[in-house]
């Protein structure tokens, strides 16, 4: 219990600091933010009314408290560019981003886990060198270029795939998949290249432990040794990977949406930055980051459920 409380406090502190940074960073804008947003043609009346609307005429701590309250109630004010509530805009775009991100996560898990187990069983010099090259290549290749390569080699050769735009699930499941599979693959491939080695390492570590030798020597079939004993005990590092990739998958989605012209949260963020629509930028950054921090918090809690020893550390 103490462990969970400590994690919870850390979670709250982190979210509070993240909110202060996200809010504070826009206070150091050089010049008057309202003038920057409206551009040079704006007259005094426009500037004054926007300043009132954004609440910039009030003391800083009041503005901050209002903003934080808005985070909880989902009222983050209006976007300047779209003249719509920030939360409505986000809700419109969220399904696209969530679809791409979850599809990517599923692909990573379904490929990286078996691949890690597969290579853990076969160890030799050549495969070690090849695997570490694959990992380094996976870290080096920019996702947006990989996306273009997939468009060139897969998207243009198979009629099934659409290389830009989005079809909602409610309209057609095949249509949605045709727009989502390539972006999800773009995010997943580098993640698989990097993360299957974690799986491999964690399985190899388990294989060297005494209990494995014991159960093997009492004659348990290799399949049961691997899937019932080793895999279960390798769950902690594998769970860590899950925590790590969610942040990277979410971040990857932001860029990859741009490659495939998907109207998701990432595209909204890029647009809002180009139009200097700061309330929208703040809102998106805050929600994405809190989501990632929250997932890591949940992963931390899950650790202690799977392996109670962790609570003592």
């Amino acid at each position, binding site marked *: 219990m103490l462990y969970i409380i400590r994690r919870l406090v850390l979670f709250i502190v982190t979210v509070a600091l*993240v909110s202060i940074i996200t809010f504070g960073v826009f206070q150091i804008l050089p010049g008057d933010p309202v003038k920057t947003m409206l551009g040079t043609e704006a007259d005094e009346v426009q500037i004054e009314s926007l300043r009132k609307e954004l609440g910039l005429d009030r003391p800083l701590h009041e503005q901050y408290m209002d903003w934080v309250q808005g985070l909880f109630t989902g009222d983050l004010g209006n976007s300047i560019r779209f003249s719509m509530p920030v939360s409505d805009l986000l809700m419109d775009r969220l399904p696209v981003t969530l679809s791409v991100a979850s599809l990517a996560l599923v692909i990573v898990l379904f490929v990286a886990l078996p691949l890690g187990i597969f290579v853990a069983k076969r160890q030799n010099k050549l495969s*070690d060198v090849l695997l570490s090259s694959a990992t*380094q290549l996976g870290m*080096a290749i920019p996702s947006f270029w990989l996306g273009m390569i997939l*468009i060139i080699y897969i998207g243009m050769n198979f009629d099934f795939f659409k*290389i830009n735009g989005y079809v909602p699930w409610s309209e057609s499941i095949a249509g949605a998949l045709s727009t989502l599979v390539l972006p999800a693959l773009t995010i997943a491939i580098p993640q698989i290249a990097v993360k299957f080695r974690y799986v491999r390492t964690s399985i190899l570590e388990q294989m060297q432990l005494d209990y494995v030798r014991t159960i093997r020597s009492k004659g348990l079939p290799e399949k049961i040794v691997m899937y019932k004993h080793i895999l279960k005990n390798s769950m902690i590092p594998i769970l860590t990977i899950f925590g790590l990739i969610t942040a990277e998958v979410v971040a990857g989605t932001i860029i990859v949406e741009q490659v495939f012209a998907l109207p998701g949260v990432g595209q909204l963020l890029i647009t809002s930055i180009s139009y200097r629509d700061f309330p929208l930028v703040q809102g998106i*950054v805050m929600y994405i980051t809190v989501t990632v921090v929250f997932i890591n918090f949940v992963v931390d809690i899950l650790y202690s459920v799977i392996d109670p020893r962790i609570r003592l550390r």
Partner: protein
Amino acid sequence: MKRYAKNINLVVGSIIIFGFFLMMIVSFFYTPYDVTAMDIPNKLKAPNTEHIFGTDEFGRDIFSRILVGSQTAFIVGLLTVIIGVVFGVTIGGIAGFIGGWVDELFMRLMDALMAFPGIILALMLVAVFGPGIVNTSIALGIIAIPNIARVARSGFVQHKEAEYVMAARLIGVKPLKIMFKHILPNVSSQIIVAASIAFAIAMLAEAALSYLGLGVQPPDPSWGRMLKDAQAYLIGSPWYTYAPGGAITILVLGLYMLSNAIRDIMDPRSKA
């Protein structure tokens, strides 16, 4: 076996980095074609003997633009690492050396910065600072700080109780001098490894920001920006993306290989 892999990293990594470095130096004095010279009749020509990487939508030689683009990559990478190391080592050093609430405050702040997904923080900072080479570097530098600060902190914590530090304290050496003259050289190897990884991440992030149109702006050449332009011609001229994409990938790959090699050489215990 380990030695074998390590040498591959060291040799290939060094060759790649040296090659690109040479390319960058040469590009200051010579490029096969004028990088800004437009030649509309020859636009979007596939790679051939005259233009080995082809020509872009204005008929400019892509190879020459790749050469000049390496300048931007190196400048942004270098500025980022300088900002990251100067602030990271100062913050991490003070936190580790002083400890107590200062440590707690600084490190919680670093944790909060690291809680942001990297690209999200980069985008937010670019929104504040605006685009361009210097602003992009400042934004990426801020992102590099927490990781380097962590590495520096753990080094300083390890060393502050060491006998040579005690001895220096006893004879009355000032704390600042102990930190930077005595402890820093002992933790420099970890910092160098962290800095070389920061360099690779910065180059990738610059390319990403420029691809999104929020990083380096024309007329400054950038590989990421070239990819953004190339995407419009993906169907007719897919080869347009190969040179800039390949350049980013190979350079970043070289940096990762070199940083792995440096880590293995300087700290043989930490074999990943």
